[in-house]
């Protein structure tokens, strides 16, 4: 009886492992095809965890910079972001400020946030938010500025209302700050100040700034994930809108598809 139970357990484990292999194998096929960049990238997002578990940092660095498709580069960058969580503050900042490929620098943005929000100073008049805002405007690279901008809005989140963010997502001291304001704004559109799908689609297509379009894109992606639409539906849509509408509109479908792929 026990042996039968053990055998059943082994069979179940094998089936699960086989299923995972099949899923990953399918994604590997999709990620290697760049006909529709957003579909390739969606598979890349879904594969990041698997790449982080199985590839070396050195291999990922090469793939993130030189991968044949946007999907492969996205997967490698996402995997690096996971591996970079173990890096020190100095290492992360060096990557962000350095001359590595933007896909590699992008991988350091999320791990940098923990360090950026923890910055302290002995200066009496030191203000963390002023410090972060300054980097978001004058940082060495786009990725450094974006990390600081995200950290700035993270720290400011409790004191901002939707009206403030709608202004700051349009007019701000740097594009990165406007973008980060848009990211937080999306959360308001998904909670306290909900918008309909039609309103979000209008925003993501005709929004007056990248920040507003990003807000719409993130919120729209959430509605799409929550819908009954299937992988095939999302792939079909991305095929039909390839190269049209806005990058943020296509990004909403890309993120939703990545979730359906199993990110």
């Amino acid at each position, binding site marked *: 009886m026990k042996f039968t139970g053990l055998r059943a357990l082994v069979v179940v484990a094998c089936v699960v492992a086989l299923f995972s292999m099949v899923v990953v194998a399918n994604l590997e096929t999709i990620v290697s095809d760049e006909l529709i960049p957003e579909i390739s990238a969606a598979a890349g997002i879904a594969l990041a965890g698997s790449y982080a578990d199985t590839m070396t940092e050195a291999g990922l660095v090469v793939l993130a910079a030189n991968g044949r498709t946007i999907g492969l580069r996205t997967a490698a960058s996402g995997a690096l972001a996971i591996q970079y969580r173990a890096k020190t503050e100095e290492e992360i900042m060096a990557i962000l400020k350095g001359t590595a490929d933007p896909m590699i620098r992008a991988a350091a943005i999320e791990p940098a946030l923990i360090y950026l*929000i923890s910055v302290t100073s002995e200066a009496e008049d030191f203000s963390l938010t002023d410090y972060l805002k300054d980097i978001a405007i004058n940082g060495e690279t786009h990725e450094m500025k974006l990390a600081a901008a995200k950290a700035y809005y*993270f720290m400011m989140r409790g004191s901002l209302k939707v009206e403030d963010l709608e202004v700051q997502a349009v007019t701000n001291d740097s594009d990165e700050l406007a973008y980060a304001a848009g990211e937080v704004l999306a959360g308001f559109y998904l909670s306290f100040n909900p918008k309909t799908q039609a309103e979000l689609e209008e925003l993501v297509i005709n929004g007056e700034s990248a920040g507003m379009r990003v807000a719409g894109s993130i919120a729209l992606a*959430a509605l799409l994930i929550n819908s009954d639409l299937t992988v095939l539906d999302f792939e079909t849509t991305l095929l039909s809108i390839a190269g049209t509408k806005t990058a943020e509109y296509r990004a909403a479908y890309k993120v939703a598809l990545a979730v359906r792929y199993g990110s």
Partner: protein
Amino acid sequence: MKKLVLVVASLLLVFSACAVVLAQGYETMPEDALIIPLGVEGTPYDFLEPGVRGGTMYISDFTDPKKWNHTTSKETSTSLYTSQMMAGLTNQNPVNGAIEPELAKSWDVSDDGLVITFHLRKVNWSDGTPFTADDVLFTFNDLIYNEDVDTSSRDNIQLPDDTFPVVEKVDDHTVKVTLSMTFRPILTQIGVAIMPKHKLAQYVHKLNPDVPAGTFNETWGLDTDPAELCGLGPFIVESYEPDQQVVMRRNPYYYRYDANGTQLPYVDKYVVLIVASQDVSLLKFRNGELDVFGCRPSDVPILKAEELAKDFTVMVAKDKPVLGTTWISVNQDVGLADGTRENLRNLFRNRKFRVALSHAMDKQTMINNLVNGLAVPQWSPVSLMSPFYAGRDYYGGPITEANAVIFEYDLDKAASLLDEIGIIDRNGDGWRDFEDGTTVEMEFNTNVGNTVREGAILIIADDLQKIGIKAVANPIDFNTLVTKLLSADYDFVYLGLTGGTEPNSGGNVYRPCGTLHAWHYSACEEPYEVEKRIDELLDAGAATLDNDKAFEAYKEYQITLAREDLGLLYTFNNAYTYVYYNHVGNAQVASPLGSPSSYYGLTWDLVFKKG
């Protein structure tokens, strides 16, 4: 040769399997197991589900523990762990707050309510040693009542007449507790952590004169070999790396089981990452490095932006508001000390004025504008999560609000009431006046810097101005505010109080001679009839060990306070917020009732990792 290798390998497997069985604890479910009916309809746990065993939960805290000794611990950074290692005779249900049997499987109460006989479960400590009445006596008589032991539990278990319950052994699994007076909250307070006599008696000077006085206070420090630790709770400390993490492993002899007969806890281990701040915890949660997080209302928007893409759930539980109260205190003793402001004092003492004020409070607008809707209106001094909350129909029952005392927002009604009591505009300047023609005006204070409270008094003052009451909002320094409140030197104050689930703990606020009866201190000498009744009802609630009778007394107490006394006018309570990845089963059990020692309200032994 191959066969020999196989035989040896098989023997090794059999041996290791036996070793695993030996470490598994009970061979079969003990007769006295405590069944938690997860998913069983008609029980408080019907919204949960039976889980599967295995996996590791990752959570975080931002302070290192100080020791592993629950009895001498004074900080939540320690009790976060020790409360998982230990258990008490009684426990609070994490869903409805009811006091329930835990290590005591039942208890009997004598007719006079002075003797409680606890029947103990026949279960084992985590090292396999049987738990007995000797452990209970050791905990109370040799630790908690022992002046040599540095414990805050002593104050908690002291009765109102300054005596302590007498704890005696009847037999190995029966303990008798004798009280000098009937005091129902004792059932909550008797639930202190029971400590293992077989491990710790040797460190108590009273029992072992060979060790110096105070030795127990240093026992089970952070340098203790974790293998030496043992408990009755779901988890035991396995390892600790300062500034890094604490790992807790399952107690193989834990006595709780689910309705399917699966022993709890479900997960094998909890890893508590020690991080720099709650903000770092939030970022780690977003990265997927933590399974659950006790988020704050200000975290909700950024979490909602990622909720579906990252497959987690942001719990905004308006049906689980945090414990405590937020209120306006109308000073009925204003000017009493120096014999001034008699008009205003008489007005504030007029119940109809306070009813008018209640109708002028737009709680929903405050909630929408000030806390993004993440709160619920409040009408009772007892927290909504308490089993004694009068919005329930019976002790621990579902909340129906059938008994709620609601003064709906209605400025016309408020104005009519003011007209009725003769507070009208006598000179046509738009402001209401007293009979002598002086304008009714008052200052409205709260603590400066608290943006929610500042916003609240602006909204209320604005509404009062709309009906001709000249109320001026003036936020002031917190310490100054508290001094004014406690010296009855104010008109209106907007503030809050922390709270629990036991109504009797509000005695220092609501009894006429309470030290925080700050809206009517003179009641101590000259109480109103309604205040005398409130005092009686608080006594009645504490003087019975029957929860149903206590509920009836406390229900009348809440309704009387809200409808007749109107000493404090309640506004709203923030909703409980929590976030968890959807691969964590039963995470929705998280509740303010578990806070703070259960990691912001999570009941550790009920959650599980989904496949």
